[in-house]
């Protein structure tokens, strides 16, 4: 396995690096290029938002980065280690230790309480039940749901469920958290809660890659990438202030 580290733009090793990433389905006339030659560098502590119309391949890209799917071509490095050629067992370890995933549909187990859902990755990783439970309880507190630890998902609101899912993604203290349309199924208040959570994660130095339709999330990212037809078309850093003020936006004459 090629272990050479590739230096990033900031001089340090980027947490995640992708070169020439492709994912194709079908062939000949039915060939679909879901992801078509994507290059990406993500530094530690960065929040990157990927936006684009539906069908542009952003979810597929995220699945490739998280090891949930295999690329047709291209290379991915995670903390300097090449990960696109890993076998299933190593990929599973990767998902256990280095990558946390948050889904649009939450994907919590309906018959497990919040804390049982959060401790699951720990149990799968072979931690002792007590240690896994302790960590899960701590993470639930971190996301502000300590009083809901014993609730079933059916008894939680959409926003609370997503926060439980985020807590679950943080169990292994991952290198990067990948979120696929995390607010897709949430109303605006729940979205705000999730936004707050992402913000606090960012402040704590967590690297986040978020695929989203939601411009609110895109706006608070460090870097905003637009994707179309399987490739990036634009990368923006939203630096600087605005010409108007909140007052003008609110309709007060400035």
């Amino acid at each position, binding site marked *: 396995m090629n272990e050479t580290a590739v230096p990033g733009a900031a001089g340090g090793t980027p947490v995640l690096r992708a070169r020439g990433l492709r994912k194709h389905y079908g062939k000949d006339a039915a060939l679909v290029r879901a992801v078509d030659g994507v290059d990406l560098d993500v530094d530690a502590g960065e929040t990157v938002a990927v936006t684009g119309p539906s069908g542009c391949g952003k*979810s*597929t890209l995220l*699945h490739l980065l998280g090891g*949930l*799917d*295999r690329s047709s071509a291209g290379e991915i490095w995670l903390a300097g280690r090449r990960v696109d050629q890993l076998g*299933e*067992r190593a990929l*599973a*370890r990767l*998902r*256990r*230790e280095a990558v946390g*995933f948050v*889904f649009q*549909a939450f*994907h*919590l*187990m*309906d*018959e*497990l309480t919040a804390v*049982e859902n959060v*401790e*699951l*990755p720990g*149990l*799968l*990783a*072979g931690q002792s*039940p007590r240690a*896994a439970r302790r960590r899960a309880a701590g993470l639930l507190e971190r996301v502000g749901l300590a009083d809901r630890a014993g609730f*079933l998902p059916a008894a939680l609101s959409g926003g609370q469920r997503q926060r439980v899912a985020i807590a*679950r993604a943080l169990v*292994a203290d991952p290198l990067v958290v990948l979120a696929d349309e995390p607010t897709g199924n949430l109303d605006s208040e729940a979205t705000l809660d999730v936004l707050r959570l992402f913000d606090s994660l960012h402040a704590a130095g967590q690297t986040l890659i978020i695929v989203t339709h939601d411009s609110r999330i895109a706006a608070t990212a460090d870097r905003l990438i637009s994707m179309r037809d399987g490739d990036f078309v634009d990368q923006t850093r939203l630096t600087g202030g605005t010409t108007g003020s909140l007052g003008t936006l609110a309709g007060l004459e400035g």
Partner: protein
Amino acid sequence: MGKLMLIGRLAARDIRRHRARAALLLLAITAATSVLTLGLALRGVTSHPYQQTRAATNGPDVVAYLPVLHQPGHRPEVSPEAAALTRAAGVTGHAGPFPDVWAVLRFHGLTAGAEVQGRAEAPGPVDQPELTAGSWVRPGGVVIERSFAEALGVGVGDRVTLNGRTFTVAGIAVTAARPPYPNLCYVNAGGCMGDFPSGTQIPARDIGLTWATGPDAAGLVTPADPLAAYVVELRLRDPAQAQAFVTAHSESQDNAGPSNLAAWPGIAAADGLLVQDEQDVLSPGALLAALLAVASVAVLAGGRMAEHSQRTGLLKAAGGGPGLVAAVLLAENLILALAAAAAGLLAGWLAAPLITSPGAALVGTPGAPSLTVATAGEVTAVALVVALVATLVPAVRAARISTVRALADVARPPRRRPGLIAVSRRLPVPLLLGLRLAARRLRRAALSTASFAVTTTGLVAVLSFHVAAGQYQAASAGGLPDPAVTRDGQILLVITVVLIALTVLNAVCAAWTTALDARAASALARALGATPRQVSAGIAAAQVMPAVPGALLGVPLGIELFAAASHIGRLVVPPTWWLAAAVLGVLAAAAALASIPAWAGARRPPADILQAEAV
């Protein structure tokens, strides 16, 4: 009327759309009905051939043993009181008295007991045994009863020794006067009296009937072992009164009167003991097969509840009510059950002659036992009941679900089992996954346990049979094979094969259904870091874990079943390592059968599955 047609059409269309499932259901119920048909077919067999033999041999209505008067210096003769029997009221004819001698028969290293009757060379008016090979008795030539001859392996022309004297086998014959080997001594109120020379002990089941000339028979007697009895065979004016005649004349208690009278119905019954044995094996076998069929059908009908919900939702959306929905579901399975009943009846009818050639001794083969309307009715009823019982729960549930929920839901959401979840936390990952998966569908797990219990019960009962048969053979000094045991063994083999086939069917279907249901959950587990191997092992474990208590339960149940069916007075317990091998074999088979669909399900990348389904 229109509604019935609608139901029928919908049911038929549904069956066409899910051919594999329909075929499996059909297979399961057919297996059960075939075994059942076989069992029922045997019931009509026994009396028939005996009647044929009786007619062909002028069989007697009463057979009596008359004690012998030994007067020093005189030939042994029948006591006058006993002799008066031939002139009793209602007697229209008789044969004998024939001398009846017990001899030790040896042939090619086998030792058996022979009840030798001395007969005239010319045929008599009552009880003339029918020759199936060779010729009748002559000086130096004996005739051996057919099933006895088969067990010994003698043919015409072979030489046997009786009490040390050599004779040639002149012929082989059948008779209606005594039950055939090995049931010779099992006539009720009859039995064998007499000792073998020199006090040799020969078990009752090793004794067969032999005929010789009068002088030859008399010659077998020694001063140390004098003649024990004469046999007289009576014809009555009214054969139906035979039992009453026997009762009337047995009441005299004194030694000089006739003893050991047997009426022809009793002989017929003993005659049928072989077939009775077979029935004793077939009935529990059929029951076990039916239970497994119920389990299979329940799994198949209840599996993929999602499909059902969707189907019923659409039905309802199209305007049918809960009644229609339930009716269509039931109709589907009842149609299949009817087809299975027909197939099972056919299969059983074709296979019956192999089983029911009713012991070698009875003349003629009755051919295929006629399929009475009663049999057909019973088998059909059982098939319908099996289908009904197994599909009642899904049908009722389908009928009660509201349309919107049926269309929206993927499946019934799993119930939470806090105890099992807590326990599973401490287990290694595959068992953790397996236990939680099984806990999601506890009813299916219970069905699996029951199914494996039934299978193991069958296997252990068969093992007990073999142990008992072995003990039996060991007790039989002469080394003669017992046709009942041989025949029972053959039938048990057939039943075992059917049970195993049904179990395999059950296990594969359950495993496939579980793997499908678990698809989303296992995709999530893999997304959270479980390896495909752990997930496959988990799905397989979800199948094997319910099998363990089932297999263990089957051991005592199998022993009990054999004890109940076999009329042996005690429990026959197979050796521990046989039982361990049976249990472990069943569990290994369960694991193997479960792992194929489990492995197949764990291969795909989790992304696809998670996109499509909610967990």
